[in-house]
């Protein structure tokens, strides 16, 4: 085990996969000379050259479109979106090409491609640099969507995404890049589609992912062993495909469910999870499902305003306390 940052973990994944498979290359804005905005590509050009680590023009449409074509042409592109917020510029390429090509051509082609999208709030990024957009892509059949919360999964899921013969959108939270964590030595891959039960507990299931997972863990620490010990904590990790069986099994045990994500609550991943639980196992619930997500506003700039939109630890504390005391 080593203690490294999330960014370093993703870098290890890139190095290992690029060394393993000569077809893997990466392109994006300012990734070669700058090493990526978050240092997540530092040193890659020295190891693999500027052919395989490519700075692109500011042409998101062309980058994603060409990435798709390059995947069809027999390579395995990793595309850095710079900020997840810019994904809209390439939305047609994602919605109508990437997600559709395999299916609408009757399985004639595989599309091994990873779109890396740094998302979420950090350092008062404001409305156009702070979004969490995973729900948009969850809604489009044909895309896999992952969102790791720690360095270990960041590495394992990125390796899995690169090896996956299908398009994967890899959301990496900007505020997590500098987080440190234990990463196993040697080769491992974190399978896409498997949630992780981070902590077992008997009275409340909490499902979260990405940065909010770390907030939930911090809250559990604050609450102390007696309360936290009753919480079963699930890190979703993959949003599509979603490991609903793990969630359902947990809810059948704990009878209570809290879902926490940074993305807007309305129409979010939490809404999907709540609906699945309600459809499939509502009779096990002893309390209403609670969802915590951002308020339906753009993310405001001022440090005085941002916390009014983005979920805060206090909200999580109250929800956990409330649910553990609640009875229908």
């Amino acid at each position, binding site marked *: 085990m080593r203690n490294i940052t999330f960014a370093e973990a993703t870098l290890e994944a890139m190095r290992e996969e690029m060394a393993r498979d000569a077809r893997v290359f990466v392109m994006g804005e300012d990734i070669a000379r700058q090493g990526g905005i978050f240092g997540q590509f530092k040193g890659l050009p020295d190891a693999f050259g500027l052919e395989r680590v490519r700075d692109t023009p500011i042409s998101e449409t*062309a980058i994603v479109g*060409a990435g798709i074509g390059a995947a069809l*042409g027999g390579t395995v592109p990793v595309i850095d979106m710079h900020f997840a917020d810019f994904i809209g510029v390439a939305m047609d390429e994602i919605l109508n090409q990437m997600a559709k090509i395999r299916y609408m051509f*009757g*399985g004639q082609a595989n599309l091994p491609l990873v779109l890396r999208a740094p998302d979420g709030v950090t350092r008062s990024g404001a409305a156009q640099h702070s979004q969490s957009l995973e729900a948009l892509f969850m809604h489009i*059949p044909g895309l896999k969507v992952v969102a790791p919360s720690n360095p270990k999964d960041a590495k394992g899921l990125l390796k899995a995404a690169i090896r996956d013969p299908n398009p994967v959108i890899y959301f990496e939270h900007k505020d997590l890049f500098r987080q440190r964590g234990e990463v196993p030595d040697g080769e491992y891959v974190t399978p*896409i589609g498997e949630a992780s039960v981070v902590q077992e507990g008997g009275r409340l299931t909490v499902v979260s992912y990405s940065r909010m997972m770390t907030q939930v863990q911090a809250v559990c620490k604050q609450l102390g062993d007696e309360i936290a010990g009753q919480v079963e904590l699930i890190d979703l990790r993959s949003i599509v495909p979603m490991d609903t069986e793990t969630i359902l099994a947990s809810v059948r045990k704990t009878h209570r469910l809290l879902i926490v994500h940074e993305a807007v609550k309305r129409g979010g991943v939490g809404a999907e999870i709540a609906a699945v639980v309600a459809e499939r196992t509502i009779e096990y619930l002893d309390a209403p499902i609670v969802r915590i997500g951002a308020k339906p506003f753009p993310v405001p700039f001022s440090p005085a305003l941002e916390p009014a939109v983005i979920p805060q630890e206090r909200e999580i504390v109250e929800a956990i306390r409330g649910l553990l005391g609640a009875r229908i």
Partner: protein
Amino acid sequence: MNKDTLLRWYRTMMRIRIFEETVNEKFLAGEIPGFVHLYIGEEAVATAVCSLLEESDYITSTHRGHGHTIAKGADVKRMMAELYGKRTGYCKGKGGSMHIADFGVGMLGANGVVGGGINLAAGAALASQLLGNGRIAVSFFGDGASNRGTFHEGLNLASVWRLPVVFVCENNQWSSTTPYRESTSVEDIAVRAAAYSMPGAVADGNDIFDVYEKAAQMTQRAREGGGPSLLEAKTYRIKGHFVGDPEKYRKREEVMEQLDRNDPIKRFVERVLEEGLLTSEDLTRIDHETLEEVSSAVAFAKESPFPEPTEAYEDLFVEAGAQ
């Protein structure tokens, strides 16, 4: 031009023409569902350009993609079956006319999004460059698509990376109901090549010899590592934008005049007969064979089974490890 090439050109152009005439008829008879856009009158472009390509080279196409698909070497049987929505079609009934594709011959798909294929071709060319496999890519698209950002981003990207790709703009004078002159800032779309430091040329898109000659320089440049080029083939869309288009926006005489004076197949036939390059027996034989071929494609399509409803749940993802 050797006789074999001329015969092949004629066969391809006729195959497209008869396929399209047949699709028109079958669509109007209610046998073919969906939206269908015909390539009639533009056959010389795909035929000439694709005759410069190897099977392993790539093309990307448009909503008006039957001609490109045929010219790249796809089988009309499986194409027709796809248009009928049958399991034996190229896309097992999941694509239809607008998503016709044959990856087996490097035809990376028609595209329901105008301008959607341009960057896919650039990307396929990038893959060829990275893999060093010598393949080139051609993107076919319309005059309307040349006003999309994908065109401008794609040409710039291809230029800065010297990608082995040829952009072929089929200027058929119309984007749906809008004349290109009303929607496009330049008289010759080819001049846009200058903005991206690549050669641009205008070809008479209804003269297969001219398209061939100009495209040959561009495919050669791509093969030699010289980078991308832009060919504008001036042509004319003889049929409506789609089958069933009431065509209120243009005069019948305009179309009749084009048919009379500028039909690419007619022009080809006149020239090869006049210059004694082919005989009318050569042509008639191909006419018969092609008619036969397309009618057996229709029979094949009709006899083929529809997919089972559960097949709608296949082909979304491929199992990991299948890469």
